[in-house]
């Protein structure tokens, strides 16, 4: 067992000299360790018992055993060739636990002969590529892509070279001198999962810049989905409570749509700091302000559970 797999309540480093077995303090310590392992298991602290709190480290870094590290570096070499990354003179690899994002990945950093980092590649523990970025500022090295269709074609080439088949609706977006972003948002039975899917960043000339993939677990779909009007009525009542009377007339519901969302603490500060990992089906009610109140609050998104009509969280546009 690696030290990083010890339960969270144990010290990171055990005392260098434990009392000899048979003595009472040692016995108590061993019993405590055993009890801790029985309670928490060997798989490391669960998110539920060790929630991320803002201000703590957002990531935990661990060294990978040589065999796993070698496999990750081998994958990175193959991915680098497929993405057209510069040949690495040296690679390092670390296991990263993203506590806010509820994710663990092996992060490989490519270095050139002068020791400069040139790329970062991330793999899920099962070896799937989940993110990559070609470091540096690469403006104007070739002819700029002219149109959306060119950007989509270039992004597809990137994905196909890595055996990734995107699904869903594609949305290309020009990013000025920063190039392009091409996004395939994940949808399940026609309902979007915002933040999930595949996003490819390209430099202006269509060469590879960045790639990220996400697919969060979904809760069971409710047996009965409440009508959108139920969600809108609930949100209208919340707005009556939340918006001061002088501004209430300038705050309106702008639209309602189903989406799989991460419950969060936007409207209930007592909830955990990190958004939940499992996405729930919700009616997302969009709210916009007009007139002077838009200076106070531009807009809101309020997520209402599509099954029981409860408040799941939301988002704020300042």
């Amino acid at each position: 067992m690696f030290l990083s797999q010890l339960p969270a309540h144990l010290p990171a480093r055990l005392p260098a000299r434990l009392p000899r077995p048979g003595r009472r303090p040692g016995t108590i310590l061993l019993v405590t360790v055993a009890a801790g392992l029985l309670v928490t298991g060997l798989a490391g602290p669960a998110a539920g018992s060790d929630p991320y709190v803002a201000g703590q480290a957002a990531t935990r870094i661990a060294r990978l055993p040589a065999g796993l590290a070698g496999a990750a570096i081998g994958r990175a070499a193959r991915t680098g060739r497929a993405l057209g990354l510069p040949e690495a003179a040296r690679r390092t690899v670390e296991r990263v636990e993203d506590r806010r994002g509820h994710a663990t990945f092996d992060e490989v950093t490519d270095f050139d002969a002068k020791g400069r980092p040139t790329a970062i590649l991330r793999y899920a523990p099962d070896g799937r590529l989940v993110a990559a970025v070609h470091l540096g500022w690469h403006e104007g090295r070739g002819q700029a892509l002219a149109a959306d269709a060119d950007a989509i074609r270039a992004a597809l080439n990137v994905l196909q070279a890595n055996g990734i088949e995107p699904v869903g609706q594609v949305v290309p977006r020009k990013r000025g001198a920063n190039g392009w972003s091409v996004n395939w948002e994940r949808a399940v039975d026609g309902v979007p999962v915002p933040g999930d899917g595949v996003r490819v960043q390209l430099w202006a000339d269509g060469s590879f810049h960045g790639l990220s993939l996400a697919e969060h677990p979904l809760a069971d779909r409710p047996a009965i989905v409440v009508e959108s009007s139920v969600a809108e009525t609930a949100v209208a009542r919340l707005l009556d409570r939340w918006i001061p009377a002088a501004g209430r007339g300038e705050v309106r519901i702008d639209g309602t749509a189903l989406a799989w969302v991460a419950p969060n603490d936007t409207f209930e500060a007592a909830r955990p700091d990190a958004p939940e990992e499992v996405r729930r089906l919700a009616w997302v009610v969009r709210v916009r302000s007009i007139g002077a109140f838009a200076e106070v609050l531009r807009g809101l998104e309020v997520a209402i559970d599509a099954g029981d009509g409860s408040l799941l969280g939301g988002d704020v546009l300042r």
Partner: protein
Amino acid sequence: MYWRANRWRAWIPPLIGVLAMLTGLVGPVGPATALAAYQATADSNESAFEPPCLGWDDPRPERMLTLAVNGMVALGYDVKGYKGAAFTKAHTLSRTVNDWSYYVHSHGDYYWYAPESRRYSGFREDSGDCAQSVVFSKEIALKRAGRATNLVVISTCFNGDSNTTLPGAFGIAKSKAGELQWNGPEFYVGYLGEAYDNDEEAFETTFWDALKRGRGVGPAFELALLEHFTHPFDADWWGSYVWSGRAGPGSFCPNCL
């Protein structure tokens, strides 16, 4: 002989940094504080998103302030965080004279500046009430009088747009120095257009974490942009991609040697 050459090589970068400091080669003069303590300020507008201004208490402004303060501390800044009644326009304009780094989370826009009948970028103070004045880039620029800044993160809408006037107010030119270039130890980050808080928080959590891990400002920005945003979120930067983010004027271009 080989051992001696290697030993000397290790001293070259810090020596260049010290020489650059002494001879003023690192760029414009920074704030007037003693070089040993690099003052930084982190402001967050929480009052706009809690009673009585709105009917719920949004925890995010305080959380993002914590992230920024912790991040700046890790980079060696002598940082203080301000929120509520302590984050006023007067406070920000007073502190900015000596700030080597600045963070703000608030409303932001390209606001109308009546004295000159034109618009300037800016953000709103907190002031602990619901009547919040705009801090204009013009006013920051007047106070700073061209002094250089290290790291500036503007966590608002619109202040990463190409027409933002805030980078210049902090003495940061809107140009990008890539792997083999150097604009000095400076980096400005802002968001494009309207940006939702969840996306801003996801970006900033990763940005500060990557800086703490020693990734440097450019890679930290890149890693932050790999986050899984729930809206069409985008951010931009100006400054030196290869800078470490660490406080003070003594940094050098690690790739230019």
